[in-house]
Each structure stands twice: as structure tokens, then as C-alpha cells.
């Protein structure tokens, strides 16, 4: 995708600290920056607790920020007037991970999808409203007979389709997909991902795809942002990142993904990354250094900043020359 010039969303030096006890703070997000261009899919990956969902939610003003900026078409989303925010919330939507808890069990599917249409006055009358609801149901592979049913009558995959239809109903430009498939079975995952890719093509949508399944992220994303404990360690085009990961964390993350091919698994080295991601004791310097085999003194002193190592490929590491490719 080459036609992008101005980013749709710019995340600039974003920080989010949560208070933990009287004096302590947890730096859930510590100075991250990245851009999302129109009509592209950015994959945001990292392990649990790395701040990927928090980042996505701050972008949609579901959380407040501590410092930094999130710009939507150049406008700070946290400084919007009520009217501006109302418009923003029509343009930016979210699909949640858990298709069970994110849909109201007491509403019919028609009302779940129709709520956004009502709030944003997108239908002139009841007939148009219903027609819209039907068309979104069809767009996500359900049908009209599903409209009057309640959520408990649907399977996980079908519920996720309802969640997608709800997001589509306000005709958004941008959708944050917060682990939309991790609660689903393999065969159903493929259905939902294909649906998302098709909808993006048809409607020119921009996606932020938050996930921990690296194979699926690679499959759907144009560019990928890798996070580790609240910091961005590497960002690059999808194929470049998987073909030539540069940050030691990205390398070990990719190396840890099992490949569904016994031959390749047998040839693979048994080396695994040691330790676990923990926020304690990583207040200064590179947060990955406690698990990194290339760590030096410099890593403990100073947090490495993102540098453009190759065109479009940014890495935050002090010891790139030592890191084996």
C-alpha cells in the first residue's frame, strides 16, 4: 500500500501510568509512538501485560492518558469537545476479544446493531433502520432471521460476527480489533479473519489488530508493532519483520511460535527464551535486558530509542551489531 501520505492515527510519546499502592506506579505504557495509515492494517503484538490492549483503548479514548498525544486526522482525541468526540466515536469503533461478555444478553441482535444507528441518526425511519440492520447481518454472513434473536442463542463465532456487525453499523473509518479471534476455534478463526479482510477491501477500512497469535497477525497485517512491557521494541512491514527480525525480543518471540510441520519442528533448535516478562526491577534502561542474552551495561543505564535501521524498519536496541540475524 503506497498511497498513504498522512497517517490516520498518530500515537506520539504516549504514556499511561497506573497507580499501584501508595507510592508505586506501574508504567503500563512508557513513551510509545507509531502511526496508522489509511486503509492499512497495523498489527500490535506482544505478550500478556505488555500494554497492547491499553494502547488500543487509549486511542479510542476508552482510557485516559498520562502523557503524550493521540492524533486522529491531526486532531488530539483527548482534547476534543463533546461534539467532536461524538463524531470521532462514529468514525472509530472496536471489536472486543470476548464475544460473550461484550454483547448485552438482554438485547436482541437487531437492537445491538441498531443502537449505533440510533445514536448517530443514520436511519431516517424504522424501515430504513431495519433494512440497514439486515444488510449488516448479511455482510457478516448471518441472515435476517437472526435479527430478533438473543445473543445466548449463538455460537462464539457467530457472536463475534454480531460484534463486527455492531462496529460496522455506524459506518466507521477505523476499527480496533482487540484479539477478535483468540476465543474462537481454528476453523472459525479462519472464517472471521477472511470476513475481516473482505470487509476491509469493500469498505476501505483501517484496522488496528491487537493480538498475541503471531502467525495470524502476520497473515492479516501490513505493518507490525512489537511491544514489550509498555515499550515499542520494533516496527516494520509485516514480511520484513518476520523475514528479518532484528530486536532480540522479536527474534525469540518468532522463534517460539510452533510451526505445524513436524520436519521443521525437528530441525529447530531447542533453545527457548528464559524467564518471564515482569515489570518489577525494570524501571531504568531497556526493559527486555533481564531476559536478553546480548544485554550489556549500556542496556541497564539507558532505554534505547527507536532507530530506523532500514527504510521503514525501526528497532530499539543498543547492541544491534552483536545481535545475530
Amino acid at each position, binding site marked *: 500500500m503506497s498511497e498513504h501520505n498522512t497517517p490516520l492515527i498518530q500515537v506520539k510519546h504516549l504514556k499511561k501510568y497506573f497507580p499501584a499502592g501508595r507510592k508505586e506506579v506501574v508504567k503500563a505504557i512508557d513513551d510509545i509512538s507509531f502511526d496508522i495509515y489509511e486503509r492499512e492494517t497495523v498489527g500490535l503484538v506482544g505478550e500478556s501485560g505488555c500494554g497492547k490492549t491499553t494502547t488500543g483503548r487509549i486511542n479510542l479514548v476508552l482510557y485516559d492518558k498520562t502523557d503524550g498525544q493521540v492524533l486522529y486526522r491531526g486532531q488530539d482525541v483527548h482534547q476534543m469537545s463533546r461534539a467532536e468526540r461524538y463524531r470521532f466515536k462514529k468514525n472509530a469503533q472496536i471489536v472486543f476479544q470476548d464475544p460473550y461478555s461484550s454483547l448485552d444478553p438482554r438485547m436482541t441482535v437487531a437492537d445491538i446493531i441498531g443502537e449505533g444507528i440510533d445514536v448517530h441518526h443514520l436511519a431516517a425511519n424504522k424501515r430504513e433502520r431495519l433494512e440497514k440492520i439486515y444488510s449488516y447481518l448479511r455482510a457478516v454472513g448471518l441472515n435476517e432471521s437472526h435479527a430478533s434473536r438473543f445473543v445466548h442463542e449463538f455460537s462464539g463465532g457467530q457472536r463475534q460476527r454480531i460484534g463486527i456487525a455492531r462496529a460496522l453499523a455506524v459506518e466507521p473509518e477505523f476499527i480496533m480489533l482487540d484479539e477478535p479471534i483468540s476465543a474462537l476455534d481454528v476453523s472459525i478463526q479462519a472464517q472471521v479473519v477472511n470476513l475481516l479482510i473482505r470487509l476491509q477491501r469493500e469498505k476501505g477500512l483501517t484496522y488496528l489488530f491487537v493480538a498475541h497469535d*503471531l502467525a495470524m497477525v502476520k497473515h492479516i497485517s501490513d505493518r507490525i508493532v512489537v511491544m514489550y512491557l509498555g515499550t515499542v521494541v520494533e516496527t516494520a512491514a509485516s514480511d520484513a519483520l518476520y523475514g528479518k527480525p532484528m530486536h532480540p525480543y522479536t527474534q525469540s518471540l518468532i522463534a517460539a511460535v510452533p510451526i505445524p510441520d513436524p520436519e521443521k519442528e525437528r530441525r529447530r533448535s531447542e533453545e527457548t*527464551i528464559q524467564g*518471564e516478562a515482569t515489570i518489577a526491577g525494570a524501571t531504568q534502561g531497556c526493559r527486555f535486558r533481564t531476559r536478553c542474552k546480548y544485554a550489556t551495561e549500556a542496556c541497564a543505564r539507558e532505554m534505547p530509542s527507536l532507530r530506523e535501521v532500514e527504510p521503514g524498519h525501526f528497532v530499539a536496541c543498543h547492541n544491534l551489531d552483536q545481535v545475530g540475524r
Partner: protein
Amino acid sequence: MDNLLEIKGLRVSYHTYQGEVQSVRGVDLEIGQEESVALVGESGCGKSVTGKSILRLIQAPGEILPGSQITFDGRDVLSLSKKELRAYRGGQASIIFQDALAALNPTMTVGRQIMENLLYHRKIGKREARAEAIRLLGEVGIPNPEKRVDQYPHEFSGGMRQRVMIAIAFACQPQLLIADEPTTALDVTIQAQIIKLLKQLQRENHTSILMITHDLGVVASIAQRIFVMYSGVIVERGSSDDIFYRPRHPYTRALLQAVPRMDQEGKQELNSIEGTPPDLIAPPEGCPFASRCKYAMPVCARLAPEVTDFGGGHRCACWLYHEMAPRVAELNDPDAAPAGEEVGQ
């Protein structure tokens, strides 16, 4: 060589208000000594129920139906007395679950939970058991075992909790470990650590493993033989290479093609399996996959498929391999296996 575990015609049903849910509908499975076997399938296919049946952990309203056979080391598991059953569970066969936090007792230190197993099954004193618990914690890779032994499950991370579960399971050097989705809730780097640990403990303790999972990637690294389960029946079984490189059943094939792979480039559509599995209150008379199968023939909906043997223990329950069925080139040609195949649009 005698098999360690043999399951024949296992049927398990759950009696609910809506009717009898036939979770497992005639499963045959066997595990050799020191062998790693994987049972693969999607949620609700009956794979966990099969695993639990081996330890007789099915509780009401569930029931292992008469006629089912489970033989462990020559003994009939389904007719063990209460006392024999207690010696068998945790002693000769152990199980670890997906959700270690739910499986561990939150009011007991992990040390006491490991000791509980040791004191019950082995003739040792408390002090010895405690020392053994510390040794086990160290062996499963928990740093500072002397200190951690007195901590509670909530003080451990998800990966560490799973290690504690493994320590409990291996405390009495079981002959069989049933691992029910042991890494599904974990991050990939932790998943790799746990798989490595399981393999290492298996080598040291000469344990057989039944790995129950939906993740074909995990299976490829650990299993020697694979059973593919769908709607309560085994649809295909064979060596790991058979299943990955020469899959015969349309479901196995579709499942392999639905998984995105890191070693493939580009953003294409995945081959998805349309539709959903059948309702097991009224399971279809014929092949349970027929309604989603792109090769389905009229006979598939009416009659349960016969099993075709491809040699070397590779068997598949599908009508397409009947002598009267039309030949489907892509299913019969081993070279067109999905492992090396370009996933098209």
C-alpha cells in the same frame, strides 16, 4: 510391545434437560510405552472428555456408557475399586489442565499440594516429602524453590503455576501423563518453555504422554502419533508425518489449511471451513463432517463411513476411499499435501 493404555468403544454421554448429549461416540485409542500421542480437535469434539474418562473423572450428569473399555497396563480401569482408583490417579496416571489457577487449591501452599501427592502414594515421612517437593520445584524450573515451596498459587505467574501443576503430576513418576491443553492459556515464549520441560521430564521418567490440544503447531513438535477427533468420533489417526504430510480425511486437510503459517508470505485468504459442528444431542446418522465437507456425497449423510486402512497405522473414516467412490485427485495424491502447498484464494 504391549500398549500402556487401550481404549475401546468409549462412549460418554451427558444427561441434560434438553436430552442426552453424546459427547464421545465410540472412540478407540491406544498409547504405547513412553509414547507421545496427541488428540486433536476443536471445542466440544469430546477430546477433553476422552482424557478425563481415562482417569474416571467424569462426574454426573456425565456417564461412561456400558460397553466402553479402558485398559491400563493390563488392568480394567472401569472396574477399579475406590481404593485402587486412588492409587491409580496421581500414582500411575496424572493429568494437568489448561487453567492451572482453577486446578490448584488456593488455600494451600504449593509445597503442601505437592506433598499431598507424595505422602499418599509413597511411603515417606513429612520431612522427606518436603525435601522432595523442593527438589521437584527446582526440577520443573522454578527459581528459589526453598522459598517458593511455602507460597500460595496466587503468588505465581501463569507459566509458573503450570510448572507447579507439572511438579505435582510428576511427583510419583507416573507411567502416563494426560496434558489437557497445557499451554493454551500461556504466552508463546512461555509455551515453548513448558513444551521443552514436558519433553525433558518425559525422557527422564519414561512417561507416556497424551497431549490434548487444538493447536496443530504444538502437536507437530511433540507427538509421534496423532488422533484427529470430530463430533465425538476419531475421523483419522496416523503417525505425525501421515497426518501432516499425507492427511486423508477432508476435515484433517481443512484444519491444516485453516491455520496461518509464519513460513508463508503475503496476505491471502485462509481456507476456512464453513458452517459449524453438528449438535450432539441429535448427532447425524452418517458422517458428522458431511454438512461442512466440500466432497460430500449422498451416502455421507446416511451412513457412518467405513474405516480405510492406509498401512502403518494410518486409518481414516471417510466414504471417499471406498472402492465405489469417485477418486478425488487432491486427496489421493500424497504430493499434494497441504504442508508444502500454496494456499490459494
